[in-house]
């Protein structure tokens, strides 16, 4: 039980750290949005599951927080992406984007 919780905590920490690394390394606002939001969501859910293994009697509040994170993170990121597009920031056109044009 304890070991499973620790493994989930480690998965969450690794995903959050890698998402922040992507926030540094990615070349564009939209790429950074992908890297930062998606992996941070997965990492937060994994950390919530790990804490749930450590403290099984907190499951209700942890479930509420997990549902809230799963609901608000995509909404927030899509709002930021729409705002960036409307503010006139062009998406990066690389060598792989010839198919759509």
């Amino acid at each position: 039980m304890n070991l499973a919780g620790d493994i989930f905590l480690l998965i969450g920490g690794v995903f959050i750290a890698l998402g922040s690394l992507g926030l540094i390394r990615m070349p564009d606002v939209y790429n950074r949005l992908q890297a930062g939001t998606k992996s941070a969501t997965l990492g937060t859910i994994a950390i919530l599951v790990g804490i749930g293994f450590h403290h099984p009697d907190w499951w209700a509040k942890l479930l509420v927080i997990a549902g809230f994170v799963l609901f608000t993170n995509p909404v927030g990121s899509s709002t930021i992406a729409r705002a960036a597009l409307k503010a006139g920031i062009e998406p990066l056109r690389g060598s792989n984007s010839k198919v759509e044009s």
Partner: protein
Amino acid sequence: MTLSVLQWGVVGLLAIAILLSTVRLLLGPTTPDRVVAADTLAVITTAGLVILASVFENPIYLDVALVYGALAFVGTVAVARAIEGNRE
């Protein structure tokens, strides 16, 4: 509970993530970059508050994490709408 070595490693990973996001928050060439970094920082802070609740053995920090997440969401959406309206 006292933290084991592996749990200290998780806290260290969260610290690295906060550092990298703060670098993007300070450097970000455009305003949406900074908003993205602030949003990521809010999510990391929510996870850190849940870990803090486990460290202090006190479930009141879970409520703090929930309220922090709600307020950060409202702030992110408000700033995004403000950027959006800049153009027209």
